[in-house]
């Protein structure tokens, strides 16, 4: 018998509210399968399971808020016999009006979460998505319709609540970071004409659906360079550095309504640029729709932030604990550049490293940025 616990979904999340079970007792589950949807201050997270097995019992009830580490369900190994008849048989359905999961309307986690926030009964929403699935938009449309007036007193809007929650969560994680992590900061100017030319040439041949953005190229360059600097890729836990098992790059994604999340793309160093771009596009889309996976939230080994779109020259980021480094990119812009005794205009970017002094020193950090600069002069390798 194994216990399934609510995993940590990042430094700024210490509890979550179970929105929905995706499985029921007796179901066989596979490693990586989404078994529950948990609401956090940042997103509705699809929680994945990390063992194969059979669901023995669901312990947490839908709607319950629980701290990280709480046992949510019990599982038995595939082939293991069910536990001797659960004493007081299965508890009677707590909420009889609820439709069993299999009869529920298909709906995205984001739509379910929004429905919950807006107090909309999702089973009564007309779905316009694939197979009649209820989309976020459907929920919002339904909510806008004048409902039978039952709540006359204006309550704080759920959107504002969420904003407040997210600000609190970001504040708590960043305060912890600044309190615990002795940051050092380095910056390096990197000529980008080779990377820009290579990318433009490759994109010319690609249909719009397969075009690659500079952001993806930068992620790949960071990931490849990190392989030579393992002390920047991992976690500081219990007073010691633990190297990351892979290069899982957290991508800082700003949300349109404010706030940000930094979920991971896994094994960035091993992906082709095209594959990485697809993963990035998918991640941004889901982050903005408020629908992420637990593995993406819990295991980034470093974070990359790109504020260049906003036009800043450089960003000196705050490390997201328990990570030990953060790489920032500013805007790529033409500036004066001296090379071989001549001055010319060249597209440049300022890359920065925020490092955790407990895990690495400025000397290694400087070598990392120099190696990143060199890697970006060899864009054909990316």
């Amino acid at each position, binding site marked *: 018998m194994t216990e399934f616990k609510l995993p940590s979904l990042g430094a700024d999340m210490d509890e979550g509210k179970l929105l929905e079970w995706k499985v029921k007792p007796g179901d066989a589950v596979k490693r990586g399968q989404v078994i529950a949807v948990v609401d956090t201050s940042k997103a509705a997270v699809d929680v994945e399971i990390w063992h194969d097995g059979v669901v023995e019992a669901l312990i947490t009830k839908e709607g319950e808020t629980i701290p990280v580490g709480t046992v949510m369900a019990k599982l038995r190994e595939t082939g293991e016999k069910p536990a001797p008849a659960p004493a007081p048989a299965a508890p009677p359905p707590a909420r009889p009006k609820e439709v069993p999961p299999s009869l529920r309307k298909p709906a995205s986690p984001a739509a379910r979460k929004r429905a919950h926030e807006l107090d909309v009964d999702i089973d009564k929403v007309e779905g316009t998505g694939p197979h009649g699935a209820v989309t976020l938009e459907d929920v919002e449309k339904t909510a806008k319709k004048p409902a039978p007036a039952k709540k006359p007193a204006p309550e704080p809007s759920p959107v504002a609540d969420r904003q407040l929650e997210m600000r609190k969560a970001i504040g708590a994680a960043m305060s912890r970071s600044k309190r615990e992590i002795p940051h050092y900061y380095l910056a390096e100017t990197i000529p980008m004409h080779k990377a820009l030319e290579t990318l*433009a040439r490759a994109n*010319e041949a690609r249909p*719009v659906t397969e075009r690659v953005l500079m*952001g993806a190229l930068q992620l790949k360059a960071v990931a490849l360079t990190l392989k030579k600097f393992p002390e920047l890729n991992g976690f500081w836990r219990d007073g010691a550095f633990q190297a990351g098992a892979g290069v899982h790059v957290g991508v800082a994604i700003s949300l*349109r309504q404010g706030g940000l999340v930094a979920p991971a793309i896994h094994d960035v160093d091993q992906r082709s640029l095209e594959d990485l771009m697809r993963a990035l596009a998918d991640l941004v889309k889901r982050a903005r729709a408020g629908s992420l996976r637990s593995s993406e939230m819990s295991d980034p080994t470093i974070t990359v932030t790109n504020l260049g779109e906003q036009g800043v020259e450089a960003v000196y980021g705050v490390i997201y604990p328990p990570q030990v480094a953060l790489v920032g990119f500013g805007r790529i812009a033409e500036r004066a550049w001296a090379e071989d005794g001549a001055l010319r205009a060249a597209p440049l970017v300022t890359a920065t490293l925020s490092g955790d002094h407990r895990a690495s020193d400025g000397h290694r950090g400087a070598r990392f940025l120099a190696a990143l600069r060199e890697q970006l002069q060899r864009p054909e390798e990316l």
Partner: protein
Amino acid sequence: MKPEALKSQVLEIMATIAPELEPGELRADQPLRNQVDLDSMDWLNFLVALHERLKVDIPEADYARLVTLDDLLGYLGAKIAASSSA
């Protein structure tokens, strides 16, 4: 396609990328990406959606010409006319 129909389709697609946008707020003769706060990912998603809906491919080399909504509508109108007469 009539210019008004094209405009309403483009705005509909834009609303899927930037749901908070009030179409009335958008100035058609001012830079689009600043007004709607579109980053390069949003912009690419917008172009992909235009491509899917209108069957128009916009090469990267043409991005620089597409500054305002008016620019974009003119460009799309010409592309659609060219492909339907071809």
